[in-house]
């Protein structure tokens, strides 16, 4: 193991890797700070650049960016009561009210400290768990993979939306989009309508850029004339004081430990991601708190719980992504596309064939979280200036980068149209309340379901019993059934509670 660590550390002697990490984090600050723009969009915009880099720089860039973007989303939450990214929504009210009571900068430093610590806990769990699970997963056959992917999609449907029907529709649309092009089992072209470019299927990265960027730009353009700047901060961010960090580190150790562990676990569930991790940790924190009445009125404990969980969730989301190729959230969904573009197929084999690279990626998680301290500090100090970017400049700038980025992937104008088409689909679906992450997950997981289902049946001579012939497969199928009946159980429990 040590030899892999030394070999991996050698890869960081290349200054390009560190420079790329820093640039990505600076970009992440800007996107995270901007309400309406998400970390997913930032990753989608950067992925085309990863094609021109070595795997460590390309994937390291994504890891570094997401860590800082999630934190930067907390800055407008504290200053304006507007979360910069959805992951900051859980603690927004508490962070804002606490900022009014104390000073905004004091709350932001606490936020930064617990974001960093949460991120490190998530990364450490990823490092230890991923290798162990990968060893176990190497024994999986197509049957286990089939159930695993079905379970992943089922969880995504349930978790990502209040209305599972909408989540299901998202999955069906994504899955249907994935069937376009040459099919994975027999090699027949499907829905190509004689267009040669369609034969290779829907280009994943342009589709992702469109799905995540265009709906956000459309939202941003709604008030482009009324609100000139992203945000305007007239008062300062307050005095620089670290006393609140000392107080919270001593007082909320157990809250931090519980929230970061919970955040990592929730982050690892497909479709969940950092935002849901933050809400669950916040909710649990309130339930177990000695002063639950303070939650929602400027509770420091609430801020610690949510911010530790959302950054820990980032590491967790990479566990299923690297081990099974099943993304934990929309960022890792795009990262899987970037990994594949680098010729790396996520799965247990990745851990056997590219151990040095995997170790280097794990080290990147730690480095990114350490860098977060410095970049985060700079972001807090510069936030009032960064937030003063005019909206009418931001919209054309981001869209131009979407077009140029989508074109650069394959030097193809067809990909640019794919980006735009998926963008319009994304606008319509998000207006209707369909969670876009389910569409993305289905585009990635759809071919896996089809391949594993058909191959299992072929191998068994069309025996349906093959799906229940192995103990892990049976366990996974029970998990799938449980995840389907879970919403109705929860609904019934809620009704009973209300009646009481």
């Amino acid at each position, binding site marked *: 193991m040590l030899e892999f660590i030394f070999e991996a550390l050698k890869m960081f002697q290349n200054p390009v890797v560190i420079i790329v990490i820093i640039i990505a984090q600076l970009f992440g600050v800007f996107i995270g700070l901007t309400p309406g723009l998400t970390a997913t969009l930032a990753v989608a915009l950067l992925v085309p650049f990863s094609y021109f880099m070595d795997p460590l720089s390309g994937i390291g860039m994504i890891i570094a960016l997401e860590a800082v973007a999630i934190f930067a989303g907390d800055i407008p939450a504290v200053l304006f009561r507007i979360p910069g990214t959805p992951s900051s929504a859980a603690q927004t009210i508490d962070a804002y009210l606490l900022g009014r009571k104390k000073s905004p900068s004091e709350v932001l430093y606490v936020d930064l400290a617990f974001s960093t610590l949460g991120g490190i806990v998530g990364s450490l769990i990823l490092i230890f768990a991923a290798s162990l699970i990968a060893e176990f997963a190497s024994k999986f056959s197509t049957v286990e993979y089939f159930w695993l992917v079905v379970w992943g999609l089922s969880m995504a449907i349930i978790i990502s939306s209040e209305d599972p029907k909408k989540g299901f529709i998202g999955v069906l649309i994504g899955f249907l989009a994935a069937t376009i092009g040459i099919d994975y089992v027999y090699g027949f072209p499907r829905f190509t309508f004689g267009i040669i470019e369609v034969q290779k299927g829907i280009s994943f990265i342009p589709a992702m850029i469109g799905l995540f960027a265009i709906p956000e730009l459309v939202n941003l353009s*709604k008030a482009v004339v009324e609100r000139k700047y992203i945000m305007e901060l007239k008062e300062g961010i307050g005095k620089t004081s670290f006393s609140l960090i000392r107080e919270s580190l001593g007082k909320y150790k157990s809250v931090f430990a519980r929230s970061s562990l919970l955040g990592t676990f929730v982050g690892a569930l497909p479709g969940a991601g950092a935002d849901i991790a933050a809400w669950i940790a916040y909710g649990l924190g309130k339930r177990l708190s000695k002063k639950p009445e303070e939650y929602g009125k400027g509770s420091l404990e609430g801020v610690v719980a949510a911010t530790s969980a959302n950054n820990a969730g980032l590491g967790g989301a990479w566990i299923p992504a690297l081990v099974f190729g099943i993304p934990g959230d929309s960022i890792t969904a795009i990262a899987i596309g970037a990994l594949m573009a680098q010729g790396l197929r996520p799965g247990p084999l990745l851990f056997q064939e590219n151990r040095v690279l995997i170790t280097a990626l794990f080290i990147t998680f730690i480095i990114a979280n350490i860098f977060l301290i410095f970049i985060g500090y700079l972001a807090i100090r510069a936030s009032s200036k960064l937030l003063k970017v*005019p909206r009418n400049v931001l919209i054309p700038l981001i869209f131009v980068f979407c077009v*140029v980025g989508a*074109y650069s992937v394959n*030097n193809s104008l067809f990909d640019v149209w794919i980006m*735009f088409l998926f963008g319009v689909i994304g606008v319509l679906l998000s207006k209707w309340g369909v969670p876009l992450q389910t569409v993305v997950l289905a585009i990635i997981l759809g071919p896996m379901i089809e391949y594993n289902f*058909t191959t299992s049946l072929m191998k068994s001579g069309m025996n349906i019993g093959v799906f229940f012939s192995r103990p892990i497969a049976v366990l996974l199928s029970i998990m799938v059934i449980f995840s389907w009946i879970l919403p109705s159980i929860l609904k019934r429990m809620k009704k009973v509670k209300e009646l009481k």
Partner: protein
Amino acid sequence: MNIKEFIGGCGIIAVGSFFLYASLTSNLPIFMAANIPGPMFFPVILSSLLIILGFTSLLQTAKNMKEMGKELPRIKIRYLTLHNHIKYPSIFLILSGIYIYSFPTIGCILSTFLYSVILQRIFGRKWRDAVLISLGIIVIIYILFIRVLRVVFPEPIIGDIIYLYYFSPLLLLKWGI
């Protein structure tokens, strides 16, 4: 809420029907020998499910018709106040479509410049600022994508001007003069 559900339901039925029709009319089989799922097995199942879900949405909307009748005036007021919120996104989407269309026709640099200037002007920015910022965007794209990443963009007009500068006789041949 109900109108959204109705339009959404209709859209889903349309998408599902399109894929179902394309699956059933293609020459590819739904089942292969020994009833093993064929290349059109999943598309047929997925599109059928979409149609079913679309009809479920429509049925739900029909069920809530009475409530919708009560809500109508509120929707009307909301529509009027949302007018500006529809105008700018629509302009953005239409202009973006034109930009992508013009990308290969007039080239990356020119189309990007024009798109950026026009959009900024519509969004209320002054001429001078819009032109300067657009020039800045072009410089970033040129340095980052063309010089550093060596991406080859379509440049029929600017490309021809450069070509003319170096190889004017060949260009005359290309234009058929």
